[in-house]
């Protein structure tokens, strides 16, 4: 109760943030998900962690509505007719976004934005489209106050996509996160170069390897960089914190053959229980208008089997002085651990995950603000990055192939990169050809910085650190992470 009192009386939280924190505290008074003894043990040790998902989940964690279908058919529950012109479209989307639930209480996915817009701007001059879109994006940034929110563009170049990039370059807004789905067969070089150049001004968009990420018939990128089925999503994201599991033993053999399988089973069983609660008990799929109107379907939901800190776990068991990202011995151990997790997930049958053949899908979880000395997902620790960006990306490609629901590299580029975005695109093309799946750039002097996947302004971090209120929830997560994960020390790639 002391917690609740401190939420109510906080000077640092906005009204809205208090409301969300109180709802969360109320949810956590319930205990409806069974936790057998060993599961409880691994939770207490911080080995299994569900990222504050709540004790009684009453909606899937990530929801990816089929916005194209909504635009085509309208939404009866919201009394919205299908939009007939550009103004109607933008208002339609603003209203619909407002009613899409998620773990953050805000929509984590805004759709293939360029494709939604393109048919509505025919015959409207660029400057008019730009003005309206600027206001639309301003509205999103100031009302979706959590940057775990993602819009997609591409893979085909569109006028709407070009205008969105032009606006992005001149604004510094954390919402929405933007990703270009890039397919060398479908995306023009000039559009991709424009996207890369834009990212060196505003840290947006990130670049997604489209062919390598087509896990489902229609996927979207949501939240940080989650690759999930459109018209579905993910019930839950739970993660195994590998370095904390590694702390429990000094024997690699025991780690790999005893503790890891047990912890994975506890985690998978717990996720299954959460899924069952959402589907069978919460009433979400029987009552929500998104389901009733076919904008999401229960059988298009899967669940994300997260892992974090592969580097530290591998380094612990590697020969003295051998490091993940630099030495074969450590990399081979890491791959053995990752393959074991992948094999487990490939054999475990999870309920209600029809879209993924009843499997839990691996996700390289980016970490949270209270992780100290734990590197995001399968990334190379900051400070250990190989001298050559090529070696770095080759390494990523080797490990990315195990991860279907999202993994990424974040690379700060020297400002001189702005002189030659074509050269950066060459590097992206090479990386994607090798199987690297997703990369995000920002300029080393940018105010906007990518924390672990989401965007935060350095200037907002400073405000929060001084005890001032900040609009974006994610600034509160980003501020401690920026410091504790030493993000300012990321290796800046030059040209």
């Amino acid at each position, binding site marked *: 109760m002391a917690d609740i009192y401190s939420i109510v009386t906080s000077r640092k939280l906005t009204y809205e943030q208090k409301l969300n924190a109180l709802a969360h505290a109320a949810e956590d008074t319930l205990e409806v998900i069974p936790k057998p003894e060993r599961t409880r043990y691994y939770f207490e040790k911080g080995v299994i962690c569900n990222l504050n998902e709540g004790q009684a989940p009453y909606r899937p964690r990530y929801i990816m509505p089929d916005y194209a279908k909504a635009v085509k058919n309208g939404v009866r529950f919201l009394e919205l007719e299908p939009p007939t012109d550009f103004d109607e479209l933008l208002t339609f989307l603003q209203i619909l976004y407002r009613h899409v639930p998620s773990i953050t209480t805000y929509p984590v996915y805004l759709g293939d934005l360029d494709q939604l817009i393109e048919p509505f701007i025919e015959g409207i001059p660029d400057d008019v489209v730009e003005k309206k879109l600027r206001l639309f994006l301003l509205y999103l940034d100031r009302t979706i106050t959590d940057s775990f929110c993602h819009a997609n563009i591409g893979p085909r170049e569109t006028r709407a996509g070009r205008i969105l990039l032009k606006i992005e370059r001149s604004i510094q807004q954390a919402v929405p996160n933007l990703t270009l789905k890039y397919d060398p067969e479908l995306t023009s070089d000039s559009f991709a170069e424009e996207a890369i150049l834009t990212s060196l001004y505003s840290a947006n968009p990130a670049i997604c390897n489209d062919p390598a990420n087509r896990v489902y018939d229609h996927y979207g990128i949501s939240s940080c960089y989650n690759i999930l089925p459109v018209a579905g999503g993910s019930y839950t994201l739970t993660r195994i914190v590998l370095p904390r599991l590694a702390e429990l033993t000094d024997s690699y053999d025991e780690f790999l053959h005893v503790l890891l399988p047990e912890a994975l089973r506890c985690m998978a069983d717990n996720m299954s229980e959460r899924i069952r609660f959402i589907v069978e008990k919460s009433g979400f799929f029987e009552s929500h208008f998104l389901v009733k109107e076919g904008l999401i379907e229960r059988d298009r939901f899967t669940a994300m089997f997260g892992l974090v800190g592969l580097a530290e776990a591998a380094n612990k068991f590697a020969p003295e002085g051998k490091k993940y990202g630099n030495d074969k011995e450590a990399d081979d151990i890491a791959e053995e651990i990752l393959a074991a997790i992948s094999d487990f997930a490939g054999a475990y049958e999870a309920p209600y995950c029809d879209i993924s053949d009843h499997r839990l899908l691996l996700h390289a979880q980016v970490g949270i603000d209270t992780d100290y000395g734990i590197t995001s997902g399968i990334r190379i620790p900051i400070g250990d990055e190989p001298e050559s960006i090529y070696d770095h990306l080759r390494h990523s490609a080797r490990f990315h192939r195990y991860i279907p629901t999202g993994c990424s590299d974040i690379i700060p580029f020297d400002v001189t990169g702005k002189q030659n975005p*074509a050269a950066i695109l060459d590097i992206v093309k090479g990386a994607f050809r*090798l199987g690297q799946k997703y990369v995000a750039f920002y300029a080393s002097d940018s105010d906007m910085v990518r924390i672990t996947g989401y965007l935060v302004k350095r200037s907002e971090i400073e405000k929060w650190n001084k005890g001032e209120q900040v609009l974006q929830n994610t600034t509160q997560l980003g501020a401690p992470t920026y410091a504790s994960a030493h993000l300012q020390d990321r290796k800046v790639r030059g040209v």
Partner: protein
Amino acid sequence: MKAPVRKIIGQSTVDGPGNRTAIFLQGCNIRCAYCHNPETQPLHADDVEMLSVDDVIEEVKKGIPFIRGITVSGGECMMHQPFLLELFRKVHALDAKLSCLADSNGTFLFSEPLLSEVDGVLLDVKAWDASVWKELTGSPTNEVVKQNLKNLLLRDKVAEVRIVCLPKDGPIQTDVEAVIAGVKAVASECGRPMPKMHLIAFRPHGVVGTLAETPMTSAEEMRVYESFLQ
């Protein structure tokens, strides 16, 4: 076959289009007043390694598939033509899509079989007028440069024309406007579009001799030079 290699940069974005591996060969036949790396002029230097074509190929391989090609610079890369030919052949054998560019001062004639093997030349056209050329480079004539310009344009192998632009009030002058007009005339004579013109501002960093104390060409002056391209 070996050549003196000053350095290899695995990831260069300033030596031709896209991302490239840049190889700097030692030795230059002329002595430009504005040369910013005069240490590369002598053909032999104690701190320069003799590398075989295969040694260089190993370095190039590290960049595949991230590079669009290679650029050989210098010094003056054309002082090592047999090396260049073998290197380009081996790079093309690795992957025919990799482009092989030469960054050259144009004082050696590009001829067969190298002319067929090189995919493009970053061609310095430092001066148009012979006397300006002589003062700037110490070399008697720029006739070969002009001949290369014509030959390479006819083969569509001018990746870009490079002109270093000196400040107007320095001790030595360049005839940038005449170079641009000259290139334009040759291109039109060849029935080819104007090649990409790359105007480079003079920087005193690394320069020795007459221009060592001359300040960098100002942005304002560069705008004037750029206007000649209109």
